[in-house]
C-alpha cells in the first residue's frame, strides 16, 4: 500500500466509515495516521471529558460531523446529580473559533443551553443536522434560533429531551426559503405549537421523509399533513382523538388505506380507541412500531394490531401487551429483530398487567432473527433463559430488568446465574448486557469466561463478593463500560486490576463498598484516569479518613486531566 500515492490511499479510506475501523487504520503507521486524520469527517467522542475539543479539532481538521456523549448512563435514572456536568458550550465555542465546517451535531446526555444552540445556528453556515438525545438545559427559544438561521437544515431530531417549552412560535421561525427538511422530530415537546406554521413547513418540504409530532398536534392537522406529504415514510402521531363520525375521521380512514409507503409509526400519546381501525391498514407495511408512549392501547387492541404486522423488525411496546400478546407477536412477526417491552406502571402503584418469562420464551421461539432486547418483567426463570439462549444465539444486546431487582428464579428460587450464563455462552456476539434478579459470583464467572465480545455491562443489586467484579474485569477483553449499583464490591475489587480501566471508557460504581482510601489509591496509581468522587449528600470530608464510604464513584480515562467545570460536590482525586 505504501507504493500508492497518498490520494489513492485516501480514496480507499473513504470507504471505511466505522469509527472503530478508522481508529485501527490510524494505528498502522505514521503515514496512514496522517492521511486518515485529514480524511475523517465523522468523529465520535464517547466521553466529552476524555479529551479537549482543541485536541479533537487539531487532529481532525476536516471534521464535519461530531457525536458527543456527556453524562454517565445512570444519569438517565436520576443517579447522577443535576449539575454534574456535560456542557456542550465549550465544544461549540471551540468549533466556532476554528471555523470548522460543522454540518452535523449529535449529542447524548449533555447539557445544552439556548446560547449553545444560538451559537451553532449562527456559526456554521452549512449546518444540516441536529440530533439531541436525553439532553436538557434548553428551551424552545434555542430551537427557534436553529430554525431561523440554519437555512439548509435537513434534520432536527429531539429524542426524549427535557425542553422548557415557552410555547413560542419556534416553528414559525423556519424561513420561507427553508425547503430542505428531511426529518423533523419534536415528539418530546410538551407545549402547543403553531399548527398553521407546521402545515406550511410541511407543504414546502418535498423531501420530508420523517415527521414525529408531539401531543398537542390534533388529528385534523395530521390529516392535512398526510395529504400534503405523501412521501412520508416515518410518522409519529401526536394526538389521535377524534369523533368517529366526523368528516375528518372518514377522510383519514380513506387516506390511510392507500398509504402503503409508511414504514415506521410511533406516538399516539392520546387516543380514542374507537378510532383505532383507521390505522389498521398501515400495519402490514410497517418495519418499525413504537407504542411505548401510548397507554391508551389496551392489551386486546395491541394483539389485534400486531397480528397484522408481518414485516415488523422493530417493536417497542408497553408491558400491558402481556405474555399472551407476546405469543401473538411471536406468531405474526417473523422478521422481528429488536424488541423493547417497557413497564406501564414503573412505580408499581396499581394492578398493572406485566410480562413474565413465558412471553420471552414465546418470542425467542417464534422470532429467530431477534438480536436486541430490552425486557422489563415481573419474573424470570433459569429454564426460560436457557431456552431463550438456545433459540436465539444472535443476541447483540440483551437487557433484562426484573422489576423486583433481587428476585430469584420464580420456579426454583435459585439465583439466575445459570440462565444468564447460558445467554453469554450461546450468544458469542453479545456486546451489551444488563442483568438483574438474584445473582451471585457464579454469573460473573460465566460472563468473564464467555462474554469475549462484551462491551457494556450493567449490574444492579447483585450479591456475591469482590470475586464477581474481578471475573468481569479480568475476563471480558473488550469491556468498555462497566456500571454497577448496589453491589457488595469493595476496594479489593476496585484495585485488583487498575490497568484495565485505561482500556475502558468508564466505570461507574454507586452504593457499593468503596472507600475514600480505595479511591485515593486508584487515583494515585493511575494518573491518566479521572477518579471522580461524587459527594451528593455532603456526607464526605474531602481530607477525612480513608475509611469513609464513597457512595458514588465515576472513573474514566482521559487525556484532558481533571476537568475544570466540576461542581463543588464532585472531587477529582
Amino acid at each position, binding site marked *: 500500500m505504501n507504493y500508492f500515492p497518498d490520494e489513492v490511499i485516501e480514496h480507499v479510506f473513504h470507504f471505511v466509515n466505522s469509527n472503530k475501523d478508522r481508529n485501527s487504520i490510524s494505528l498502522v503507521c505514521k503515514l496512514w495516521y496522517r492521511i486518515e486524520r485529514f480524511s475523517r469527517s465523522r468523529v465520535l467522542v464517547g466521553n466529552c471529558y476524555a479529551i479537549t475539543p482543541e485536541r479533537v479539532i487539531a487532529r481532525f481538521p476536516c471534521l464535519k460531523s461530531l457525536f458527543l456523549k456527556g453524562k454517565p448512563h*445512570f444519569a*438517565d*435514572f*436520576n*443517579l447522577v446529580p443535576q449539575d454534574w456536568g456535560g456542557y456542550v458550550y465549550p465544544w461549540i465555542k471551540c468549533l466556532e473559533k476554528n471555523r470548522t465546517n460543522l454540518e452535523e451535531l449529535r449529542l447524548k446526555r449533555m447539557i445544552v443551553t439556548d446560547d449553545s444552540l444560538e451559537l451553532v445556528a449562527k456559526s456554521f453556515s452549512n449546518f444540516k443536522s441536529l440530533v439531541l438525545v*436525553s439532553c436538557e438545559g434548553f428551551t424552545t427559544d434555542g430551537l427557534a434560533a436553529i430554525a431561523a438561521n440554519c437555512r439548509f437544515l435537513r434534520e432536527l431530531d429531539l429524542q*426524549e*429531551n*427535557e425542553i422548557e417549552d415557552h410555547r413560542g412560535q419556534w416553528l414559525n421561525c423556519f424561513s420561507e426559503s427553508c425547503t430542505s427538511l428531511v426529518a423533523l422530530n419534536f415528539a*418530546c415537546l410538551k407545549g402547543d405549537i403553531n399548527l398553521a406554521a407546521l402545515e406550511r413547513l410541511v407543504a414546502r418540504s418535498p423531501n420530508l421523509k420523517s415527521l414525529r409530532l408531539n401531543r398537542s398536534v390534533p388529528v385534523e392537522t395530521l390529516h392535512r399533513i398526510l395529504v400534503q406529504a405523501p412521501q412520508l415514510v416515518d410518522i409519529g402521531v401526536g394526538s389521535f*382523538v377524534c*369523533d*368517529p363520525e366526523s368528516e375528518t375521521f372518514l377522510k383519514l380512514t380513506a387516506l390511510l388505506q392507500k398509504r402503503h409507503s409508511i414504514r415506521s409509526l410511533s406516538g399516539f*400519546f392520546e387516543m*380514542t380507541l374507537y378510532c383505532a381501525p383507521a390505522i389498521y391498514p398501515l400495519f402490514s407495511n410497517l418495519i418499525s412500531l413504537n407504542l*411505548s*408512549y401510548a*397507554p*391508551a392501547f*389496551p392489551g386486546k387492541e395491541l394483539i389485534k394490531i400486531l397480528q397484522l404486522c408481518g414485516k415488523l423488525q422493530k417493536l417497542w411496546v408497553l408491558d*400491558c401487551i402481556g405474555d399472551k400478546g407476546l405469543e401473538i407477536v411471536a406468531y405474526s412477526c417473523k422478521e422481528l429483530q429488536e424488541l423493547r417491552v*417497557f*413497564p*406501564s406502571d*414503573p*412505580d*408499581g*402503584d396499581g*394492578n*398493572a398487567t*406485566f410480562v413474565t418469562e413465558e412471553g420471552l420464551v414465546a418470542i425467542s421461539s417464534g422470532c429467530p432473527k431477534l438480536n436486541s432486547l430490552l425486557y*422489563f418483567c*415481573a*419474573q424470570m426463570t433459569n429454564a426460560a433463559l436457557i431456552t431463550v439462549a438456545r433459540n436465539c444465539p444472535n443476541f447483540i444486546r440483551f437487557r433484562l*430488568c426484573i*422489576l*423486583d*431487582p*433481587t*428476585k*430469584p428464579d*420464580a420456579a426454583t*428460587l435459585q*439465583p439466575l446465574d445459570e440462565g444468564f450464563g447460558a445467554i453469554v455462552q450461546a450468544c458469542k456476539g453479545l456486546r451489551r448486557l444488563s442483568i438483574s434478579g*438474584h445473582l*451471585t*459470583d*457464579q454469573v460473573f464467572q460465566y460472563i468473564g469466561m464467555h462474554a469475549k465480545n462484551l462491551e457494556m455491562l*450493567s449490574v444492579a*443489586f447483585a*450479591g*456475591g*463478593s469482590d470475586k464477581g467484579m474481578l471475573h468481569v474485569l479480568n475476563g471480558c477483553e473488550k469491556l468498555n463500560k462497566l456500571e454497577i*449499583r*448496589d453491589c*457488595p464490591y469493595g476496594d479489593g475489587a476496585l484495585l485488583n486490576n487498575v490497568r484495565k480501566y485505561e482500556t475502558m471508557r468508564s466505570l461507574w460504581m454507586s*452504593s*457499593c*463498598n468503596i472507600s475514600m482510601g480505595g479511591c485515593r489509591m486508584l487515583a494515585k496509581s493511575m494518573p491518566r484516569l479521572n477518579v471522580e468522587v461524587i459527594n451528593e449528600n455532603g456526607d464526605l470530608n474531602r481530607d477525612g479518613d480513608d475509611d469513609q*464510604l464513597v457512595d458514588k464513584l465515576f472513573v474514566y480515562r482521559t487525556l484532558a486531566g481533571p476537568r475544570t467545570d466540576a461542581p463543588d460536590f464532585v472531587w477529582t482525586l
Partner: protein
Amino acid sequence: MESTGCYDKDLNLEATELRLGLPGTDQTEPTTNKRSIHQTKEEDQEGGSKVASSKAQIVGWPPVRSFRKNSVQPKKNKAGTEAEASGIYVKVSMDGAPYLRKINLNSYNGYDQLLVAVQSMFRITIGRHSEREGYGGSEHAPTYEDKDGDWMLVGDVPWEMFTRTCKRLRIMKGSEARGLGCGV
C-alpha cells in the same frame, strides 16, 4: 455453587446502609432475598396474577428514563375499576343563579347520570336528549364550551369525547333554550 446463606453477609447492608424497606421503616436484617421468597409464595397463593403492591421506592429503579416515567401515566383498566382520583372539574353556571357550581365529570358514567346530578343541583327539569330535537321544548338546555370555544349542546358526542373536550357547562333557560335544537 455459592451457599444460599453467604450472600446475607456479603451484601453487608448495614455498612452501605442499603434499605429495601419502605421509607421510614427500620430493617434489622438484610431483607432482599427473604422478601422475594415471601412475595413469590404470596403470588402462588393468589394464583400468580398480582404483583406485590408494597414496593419500596428505590431511587432509579426500575431503570426507566425519567422522561419516560413522567410521560406514561398508568392507564386504568376500563372494565370496572374506579375512576381516577384526579377528576375533571368543570364549572356549571345557570342563567339567573347567584353563583356557579363545580362538578367532577369523572364521577359520572354518562350523560344520564350527569343530567340527573345537574337537575338536582339546580332544582330544574331538563328532559331527555334526542338527536333531532335536542331537549325538545324544555325550559332549560344544558350546553358546554368546548376546546375550540364553541357552545355546544350537551349529549351529541360520545361521552368520552365530551369529558375530554368540555371546558365548562352552562344551563341556558327561557327563550334561548327553546330556540336550541328544535328540529331544524
